[in-house]
């Protein structure tokens, strides 16, 4: 249990650090963006919104930094992330609430698929190394070097424009109203397919290469030779002895690269105008909508932390050594 407790403490510290970073970023940067914003949104900003903006950038001269920090936490705990300019006067929390499920499903599912397929393929390649399949390595590294968003562009050009099999943008057909009926869900799946395929193709090679190298390393371990000497079936040796151990670093690598993957998938959403968090972030950035950007960053970080905890839990279940007492 100590392993999980230590990890839990780590996540609390990281969450605190991310939230604090979020508080300080606008204060540390030069310039006074608020005035220009107010001029830009002339007449659209309510007094409350202007006040919130001053508080956000720490330009509220009357309160001390410490007091500002406390106020920031207070607002956070009541779920108040400020008002969005772009979707004025919708609160940021509400904007995020609407887009988060789209991202969670799209990114969550496609990442799981990519991890599973990539790990299986990597185990196979590592096990069968020294054959023609080794030629997949440079091809794989080529694919892993392609930015997600560019593959998205190509996918749209080929499968949505030149050969219109899939819709090129959006999360569902405009004719429907979001609800839980079969037509709408089907439309959402249909719209999500191309972004999902893009994410899977661009991230699968990374898992494959990592797992391949770990399998090659583990295949030279004594216990794998012992398993062969025992005359166990090839399948048993490969899965229960080699792959079973090789997957451990891949799982911890999964946790650590989540932050990176999420970055790539966010841009994929931008390319597909997919109604998730990444697209919202893009809208925020284009409109210099600071409350929205900050809220989105906070939510992304907390989601990545949550996903990390799940990966840690999986690791603890997979490796008996972490369950050791003391």
């Amino acid at each position, binding site marked *: 249990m100590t392993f999980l407790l230590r990890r839990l403490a*780590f996540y609390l*510290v*990281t969450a605190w650090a991310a939230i604090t*970073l979020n508080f300080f*970023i606008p204060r540390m*940067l*030069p310039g006074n963006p608020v005035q220009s914003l107010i001029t830009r949104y002339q007449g659209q900003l309510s007094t409350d919104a202007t006040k919130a903006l001053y508080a956000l950038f720490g330009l509220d001269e009357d309160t001390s930094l410490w007091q500002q920090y406390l106020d920031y936490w207070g607002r956070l705990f009541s779920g108040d992330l400020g008002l969005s300019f772009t979707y004025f006067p919708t609160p940021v929390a509400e904007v995020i609430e609407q887009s988060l499920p789209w991202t969670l499903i799209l990114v969550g599912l496609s990442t799981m698929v990519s991890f599973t397929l990539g790990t299986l393929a990597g185990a196979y390649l590592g*096990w069968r*190394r*020294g*054959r023609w399949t*080794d030629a997949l*390595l*440079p091809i794989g*590294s*080529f*694919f*892993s*070097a*392609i*930015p997600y*968003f*560019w*593959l998205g*562009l*190509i996918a749209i*050009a080929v499968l949505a*424009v030149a050969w219109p099999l899939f819709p*090129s943008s959006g999360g569902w057909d405009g004719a429907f109203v979001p609800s839980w009926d079969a037509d709408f869900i089907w439309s959402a799946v249909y719209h999500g397919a191309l972004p999902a395929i893009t994410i899977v193709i661009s991230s699968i090679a990374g898992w494959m290469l990592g797992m391949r*190298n770990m399998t*090659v*390393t583990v295949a*030279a371990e004594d216990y*794998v*030779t012992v398993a*062969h000497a025992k005359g166990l079936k*090839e399948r048993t*040796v490969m899965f229960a002895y080699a792959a079973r151990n090789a997957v451990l670093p891949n799982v911890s690598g999964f946790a*650590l690269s*989540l*932050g*990176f993957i*999420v*970055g*790539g998938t*966010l*841009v994929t959403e*931008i*390319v597909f105008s997919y109604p998730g968090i990444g697209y919202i*972030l*893009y809208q925020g*950035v*284009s409109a210099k909508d600071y409350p929205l950007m*900050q809220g*989105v*960053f906070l939510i*992304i*970080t907390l989601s*990545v*932390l949550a996903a990390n905890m799940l990966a840690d839990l999986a690791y603890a279940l997979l490796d008996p050594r972490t369950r050791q007492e003391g």
Partner: protein
Amino acid sequence: MATTTPTALVTPRRGFRLVLRNRKAAAGLIILGVFALVAALGELIAPYDPDALSPALLEGPSGAHWLGTTNTGQDILSQLIAGTRGVLLVGLLAGAIATVLSIVVGVTAGFVGGAGDEALSLLANVFLVIPALPLIIIVASLLPSAGGTTVALVIGLTGWAWGSRILRAQTLSLRRRDFVQAARANGESLWRIVFFEILPNLTAIIASGFIGTVIFAVLSQITLAFIGVTSVSDWNWGTILFWAQSNQALAQGAWWWFVPAGLCIALLGTALTLVNFGIDEFVNPRLRTGGNRPVKGIRPRVGFTPVRRKETS
């Protein structure tokens, strides 16, 4: 059993030659060399001024414009060449900043141990878990003018954690080795030990971390340019994609506008990855493929040693 020779204690110079002999790494270095040459020559070999407008609007590849033109008649090949320098400079600068930071944090953490190690490791892990790209996007968009140097600085300051983690682990194991213990017992100064005993043995890992960060930096800056966060007048491959996207190149079927830039990114990334393969195989001898050349009639297999009887003798 085949004994694996300890390769960690090879001099950097010999190690570099070993990496070079690896065919994957050599291929990667050749591609990198070509990109570096293009970046250095820049406007000397570019057929046009990348910003110059011309009457050839949105034309496909031709003798006059090898990679076609944009909707304002700009030459795409020239933009690509001009962009190479920006991509490489930002990538290398960010990689250098992140590498220095990762060495400082990683080696210190591994060497001092105790509470200092705990604190530095915590710092690195926090930076590792916080998603870097959204952070970079936000910081870059808050900054009044986000040019190449600023972008490199932001990427470097956020991308050091991975390397420092690996360096810390390696330093920890080196610290316990005999030769470091002996140097300590001889009363050599801390700095001497770090610079002359520890760092030379970390060269391969530092190099691999540097390359990894350059890949990350290249992808990040291109992504930033593509979504229009950074200055759209500095040419890099992402800028080309930004203009292609905002001018509906996709819908108009102008593939020459966005395909070459993407291929360049992938090619540069592949080249860097191949060099890293070479370093990995150097650090972990188990990854080396036997002689790198497949031999007819022999299937190397774990658990079933191949048998090839020689006809004679």
